[in-house]
Each structure stands twice: as C-alpha cells, then as structure tokens.
C-alpha cells in the first residue's frame, strides 16, 4: 500500500483576468503550485456567460490548489477580502495525496 497524507483541495472560481491576482496570493503563502481548469460556461445570479465571448472580461476559470491545512487556511484568510468584490466561489474539500509531503 502506498502511503498518503491528508491535504486540502481548494477550488476558486474566478474571473479569468483576475487569475494572476489569485496566483500572487498563492505564491505569497508559499504554496507549491496551482492548476487552472477550463470552464466553458456557467450561470448565476448575475445571468449566464460562456467562454465564446470576444471580451474575456466575463469568462471564468477555476484555480485548483492542493495544500496543507495550515497553508490552506492562510490562503483563505488572504483571499477573504476579495471574496465579495471579485465574486469568488471558494470551496475546500479534503483529499488524500500520494507522496504529498511537498504540499
């Protein structure tokens, strides 16, 4: 059996132009990395949107981050002030990570 460690899996749904702001925070709390998942379309209280829009301003993506509980907490604290004005959707789940000591 391969050994695993428990880590947080954070998903941040964010306007694509704001991704660099989010990754700056990720780096600032010393998390090892992130991955940006492609979102095609969506809908919410502000109406629907889809990627095939020449103006990228309404498109969104998901920033996926795996981190230790402690770093995850620091990241969430850092992002808290942005939640409303950036209209972020931030979820935190629990996962087992294989050879995940580095996170």
């Amino acid at each position: 059996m391969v050994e695993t460690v428990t880590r947080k899996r954070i998903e941040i749904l964010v306007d694509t132009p704001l991704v660099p702001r989010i990754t700056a925070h990720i780096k600032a709390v010393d998390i090892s990395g992130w991955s940006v998942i492609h979102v095609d379309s969506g809908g919410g209280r502000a109406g629907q949107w889809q990627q095939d829009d020449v103006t990228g301003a309404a498109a969104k993506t998901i920033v996926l981050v795996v981190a230790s509980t402690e770093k995850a907490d620091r990241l969430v604290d850092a992002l808290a002030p942005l939640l409303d004005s950036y209209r972020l959707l931030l979820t935190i789940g629990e996962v087992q990570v294989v050879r995940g000591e580095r996170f």
Partner: protein
Amino acid sequence: MIIETLTSPVILFFVLGFLAALAKSDLSIPEAFAKAMSLYLMAAIGLKGGVEVASSGITSDLIAAAVAGIALSFLLPVIAFTLLRSFGGLSQVDAGAVAAHYGSVSVVTFVTAKEILTGQGLGPAGYMVAVLALMETPAIISGLVLARRGQTAAGNSVPWHEVLTNASVVLLVGSFLIGMIAGKDGFAPVKPLFETGFRGVLCLFLLDMGLIAARRLVQSRKITYKLVILAVVLPILNGAIGTTLGTFIGLDVASAAALGILAASASYIAVPAAMRLALPEADPGIYLSMSLGITFPFNIIFGISFLAAYAQLIG
C-alpha cells in the same frame, strides 16, 4: 447611404448573427477562431496603416489627429460620467467604469467603418490607425480617476502594466511599426493574406459579434431603460463631437468621419479587462451590456452611416 450599408454582406452577416442569437440558435463561432480573427484584423489594419504612413510620411494632419484623439479619449469620459450619474442613476464606481468604455474605442467598429466608407469612396487616411491605438488607453485613466475621486482606496490604482501592454495596443502598434519598416515592397509578399482575405474574415467576425452582442443583451439583467437610452445617446453625442473636432482641425472628410466613429465607439475588450482588475466592485454586467450589447450594434448598423453623412455635411 444607409441602404448601401445595409445590403453589404459585412453588415448582413452581423444582422444574421444578431437574429440567430435572438432566436436562441445554437450557432456559435469557436472562441479560439474568433480570437484568431480579431488578431488577424488588428495585424492587417496595423500593417496597412503603417505601409501608408511609410509612403505619406509624418504629416501635420497626422499630428493634429493624434492630439485630437488623445484629448477626446481623456475628456469624453467626463461627459459620459456626468450623464451616467445624473440621468442614468449609476453609482460613482459603476459610472466611472462605464465612462472609461465610451472614451476608449472599438477596433472592430473602426475596421467595419473603414471597409464601408472605403467602399463608398470615403477611405480614411492610413494614420487613423495610429490614432485608434492612441485612443485606447487615456480613457481608462480618466474613468478610474472619476470612479475614485474623493476616495482614499488603497491598492486600486491604475493597473499601468496591464493597460500599457494589453494585447490590442501591442499588436496594433507593433504591426503599424512593422508596416512602416517594411514599406510597400516589404509588405507585398504578405499582402495576399492581409488584404485579399480581409473583407471575408470581417464577415465571419461580424457574424460572431452579432451573436455575442445579442446574447449579451438577452442574458444581462442589470440594464434599465435609462441606460439603454444612454447607450444610444452617447455614441451620437461623442461621434458628433469627434467629427466636428476632426473637421475643425482640418482633416479630410473621410478622416473626420473616422475620428467621429472612434469617439462614438465603445471599447469591449481592453477596457472591460482593465476595469475588472482596477474596479472589481463595478458590475461587468452593466458596462458590457451597454458597450457590447447596445452601442456596438447601434454603431455598426446606424452610427457609421450617420457620422459619414454628418462629416460630408459639415466638411
């Protein structure tokens, strides 16, 4: 003139896209291809503008038009802001964000106008491409200042880096310079792609823009009827100011019309991205619906012909 415009395939494809989206057709242009077409259009007009300036040289008209363009881009947001606050009833932040769009420009509106006008013997001077590039940015600064006046917000200053290196500015200015360096002879071997295919690509791109504009209109929930009125009044007002100014500083009729169209057009690429960064609390639903959903179609279908007629009248 409006009839000639309305039977041009370029405009008809826009109308087709608009109607298809209103009918909720699943017709859609792949995002990557639409972006590719917009890059192509910008590279093509940049190159052609540069090649023309390479043979005409830097004239006093060019300088006058450039100064006028920059001034318009700085000042038009003030008018827009006032109307958006008083008549439109927007908050300071939202009004500032919208105002920035109306001072800045829409490349596609300019390109469409250039094609339509050239087809009617009214082709604007090559240097107007440079004016186009110069008018993208100042309005962003005005809009932000208006949105933040009297506030002491930290960390929400002008995102200079993003504004100055944004894709359309870089590509327009870059290909303009390449056109100037290459000149007519250097341009010849690449001319087939950038000139022969131009109008056809514009058709397909406007098909997409029609789809996008109508979807934006249908899906948005933030637009009051007063904002709809302003999204039509502002291009007329700004366009008239721009054309008058262009005529006043001595531009030829076609270039004065083009300056008016630039003033009338509202950005929907560079400025929204900048506003999302600098004014994240402003509602993108408002500024995108106005600039992309109303002003853009209005300009394509009526504004261009109207301003061309006005320029001929006063020119």
